[in-house]
């Protein structure tokens, strides 16, 4: 007797139904104002959750929820003086002398293992950040601090080598205070692989819960946090291979927030989604074509083309930067009036710069001897065509787009540009070694120009970030005045402006764009405030009102 066959179809249909229904929620329980869960889609993953030894922006986003600074930037973003800073771990501070700064720690502050946060933790943190064995990339930012000592368990004293406008900023902005009792025994040269960095114990508004490599990091609110209980109960970062995939997850409803929407097209998509709200904020990046002023591979000789200031000026004037910007960024960037990010307080559209003037550019090139003698559309001089190679990384879609548009604009001006597109690692190596004619570079900046600008546009950055070896003593003098001796913000601003205008006249680069970021956050999340230098700095105050909670927010595990 044949065995009756079981029908396969219904079983498969049931399985498919189960799989499709897998999104169904678990029992829900949490109610009230502290139940929200936010999922952030991120285009990168932290390398380690130990602030001194990580350079990634995503690491900073996560660790800023775990570790407190002594004080933090205020909404104005002013980095000069101390009046615009807000207390965090330090409840107050005073200047004992022009170069002696005393912090008084908040006695309520606790590490999440119950230990109190003490002045010894602060001294330990400074020691670690400046220890060559730890090899922190923030070490150079702390070079003006001579010593950090404790006066008692809650009082810590910073002594500076000299007086300057951003002393307070240097003391507080880069140091995330670390628990000495948990890290003291870890050998300093092994901090980059310390187990603590994969399961940290902090003193911030959130505590570490879990890190699934390649997938997600989960933080839970510390309900006893001394500066006020965070409203969002859980924050989860979901890691994606790049920012574009992160945006896809947001649009598909798998995430609640992304830091930047990257392209105008994505901004339109997010705005078209009734569930999402967009939040524009100032960007910290600027992009430019940097000319190599030295011969590639020989820094003692001027570049055969870009050693000539008039040629550089002509190329700047031949570039219609507004049109390029509209093509690539639409409304989500500005043409910078020099090597400036929008984040910097010295941003000033009135700074004088070379105008777009193709006629003047052509006359200048002709005057310097670059004429199209053979009628091939490319100018030449003494048998040499007006041609150069532009180095850029393949990983940046924005820069690739810019490169092609620039190539076309220069062709019209009689300049032949060939593109050298290489991967990012090789790009960095060649840029640093000066093996290029011109490069299409982007800098992500700190909130102040004082650290990045000298490294990028003065001889202090030779062999580091001044890839094109730009050197003008007048610019150096003005920058030094702005950074080291300005008595107040207005004086510093004037010095910065003069420095940038001098630099613009020299045309060491074509300053193409300064980004404006747009974040997107699910509309059920209220009180979203974004501080441009660190978009999640005020996350503690974001909340989901009780009437907007979804089952996902209330779910218990």
């Amino acid at each position, binding site marked *: 007797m044949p065995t009756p066959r079981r029908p396969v179809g219904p079983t498969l249909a049931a399985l498919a139904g*189960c*799989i499709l229904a*897998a*999104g169904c929620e678990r029992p829900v329980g949490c109610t009230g104002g502290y139940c929200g869960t936010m999922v952030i889609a991120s285009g990168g993953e932290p390398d*380690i959750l130990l602030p001194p030894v990580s350079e990634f922006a995503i690491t900073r986003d996560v660790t800023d929820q775990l570790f407190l600074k002594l004080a933090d930037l205020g909404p104005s973003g002013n980095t000069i003086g101390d009046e615009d800073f807000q207390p965090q771990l330090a409840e107050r501070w005073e200047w004992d002398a022009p170069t002696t700064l005393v912090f008084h720690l908040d006695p309520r502050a606790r590490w999440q293992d119950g230990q109190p946060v003490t002045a010894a933790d602060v001294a330990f943190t400074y020691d670690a950040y400046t220890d060559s064995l730890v090899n922190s990339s923030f070490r150079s930012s702390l070079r003006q601090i001579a010593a950090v000592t404790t006066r008692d368990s809650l009082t810590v004293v910073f002594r500076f080598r000299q007086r300057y406008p951003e002393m307070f900023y240097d003391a507080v902005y880069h140091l995330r205070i670390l628990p000495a009792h948990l890290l003291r025994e870890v050998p300093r*040269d092994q901090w980059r692989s310390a187990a603590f960095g994969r399961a940290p114990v902090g003193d911030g508004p959130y505590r570490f819960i879990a890190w699934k490599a390649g*997938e997600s990091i989960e933080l839970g609110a510390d309900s006893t946090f001394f500066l006020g209980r965070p409203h969002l109960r859980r924050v989860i970062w979901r890691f994606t291979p790049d920012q574009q995939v992160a945006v896809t997850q947001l649009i598909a409803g798998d995430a609640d927030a992304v830091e930047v929407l990257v392209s105008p097209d994505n901004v339109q998509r997010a705005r078209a989604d009734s569930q999402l709200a967009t939040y524009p904020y100032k960007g910290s990046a600027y992009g430019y074509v940097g000319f190599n002023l030295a011969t590639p591979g020989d820094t003692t000789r001027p570049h055969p083309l870009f050693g000539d200031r008039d040629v550089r000026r002509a190329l700047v004037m031949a570039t219609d930067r507004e049109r390029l910007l509209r093509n690539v960024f639409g409304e989500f960037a500005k043409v910078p009036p020099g090597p400036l990010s929008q984040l910097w307080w010295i941003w000033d559209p009135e700074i004088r710069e070379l105008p777009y003037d193709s006629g003047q550019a052509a006359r200048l090139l002709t005057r310097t001897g670059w004429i199209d003698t053979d009628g091939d559309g490319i100018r030449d001089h003494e048998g040499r065509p007006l041609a150069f190679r532009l180095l850029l990384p393949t990983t940046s879609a924005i820069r690739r787009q810019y490169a092609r548009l620039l190539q076309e604009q220069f062709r019209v001006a009689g300049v032949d540009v060939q593109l050298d597109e290489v991967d990012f690692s090789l790009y960095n190596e060649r840029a640093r070694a000066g093996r290029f004619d011109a490069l299409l570079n*982007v800098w992500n900046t700190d909130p102040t120009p004082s650290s990045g600008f000298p490294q990028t546009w003065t001889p202090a950055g030779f062999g580091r970030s001044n890839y094109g070896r730009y050197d003008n003593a007048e610019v150096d003098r003005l920058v030094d005045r702005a950074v080291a001796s300005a008595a107040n913000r207005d004086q510093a601003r004037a010095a910065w402006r003069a420095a940038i205008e001098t630099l613009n006249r020299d045309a060491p680069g074509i300053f193409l764009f300064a980004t404006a970021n747009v974040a997107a956050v699910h509309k059920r999340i209220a009180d979203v405030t974004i501080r441009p230098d660190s978009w999640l700095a005020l996350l503690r105050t974001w909340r989901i009102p009780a009437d907007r909670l979804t089952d996902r927010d209330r779910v218990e595990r």
Partner: protein
Amino acid sequence: MAAWLVRRLVASIAIVFAVVTITFFVVHLAHGTPCGFDDRPLPPEVCKQLCRRFGCDQPLLVQYGKYLAALVHGDLGESIGLHRPVADALRDAIPNTFILALAALLVDFALGLALGIYQAVRAGRFGDVAVGNVALLINSMPVFWLGLVLLLVFAQWLRWFPAGGVTNPILCPRIDSPHCLLDFLWHLTLPALTLGLVAAASTARYQRAALLEVVRQDFVRTARAKGLPERRVLLVHALRNALLPIITLFGLAFPFLFTGAVLIETVFAWPGMGRLAVNAIFQRDYPVVTGAALLTSVMVVLGNLIADGLYAVADPRIRVRGEAGGREGSA
């Protein structure tokens, strides 16, 4: 058989060794440094110190010698970019890639065999032509493009499936319940389907051709003459003999699925070996690149060994020849 197995194992080890050696030298000779993958590269002094710590300031042959010496002791080194042992990073990534490849393999062979058989049974008729053309269309698609299309349609527009990841991080941070297992399968569906569909398209074509070849042979005619039901003739007598080329495909499928996984893991944010290796290549994270190459080659070699074993199971003639060969070899 034992001698054959030993020969294959020795050859496999040699292949893996060659892959590791070539990978090691290629990644180290490539330009670029592991010093920053951002618009804020590491300061030179930090970079130099990092390089010293990982020994990349030493002559390449010295580095290679040290790498091999550590490898013999099972030490794959420490990742420069991830700040953790390479073995740990691979341990996290392997299961994801393995499950994805296995699921894709399931889709590939289940769908490929079924469609191939269907086409062979209906050879020359509308069903055969229609399925053949669709298979050709899918086979012509780049796997990442198909992934993007499925993502757009099923995740973004219809929202039937998630747009990436392994599980829902809120509901299922761990797969510790039937509900979370289903959630995992839900997340696995699109990437596995993408990878499996492209492979199934070619499997179907092979299967159709192989089955058509077999059904013309005498033993099939004999089976039909004995009055066996057509279903039994095809599925029992003909199919087993038509499986040999498919087993060859099985051996080849592993490399395809692993390389395909590199792209699919990126499209679907699936945290497997492919994504790990690609990131490591861009960051010049030499130990991770070499470790990933080592592991991938081991898996591919193993896949081929399994395929060879299956030959013997599927075709007794091969088993007999293999045993005879083994005897000759040992004599």
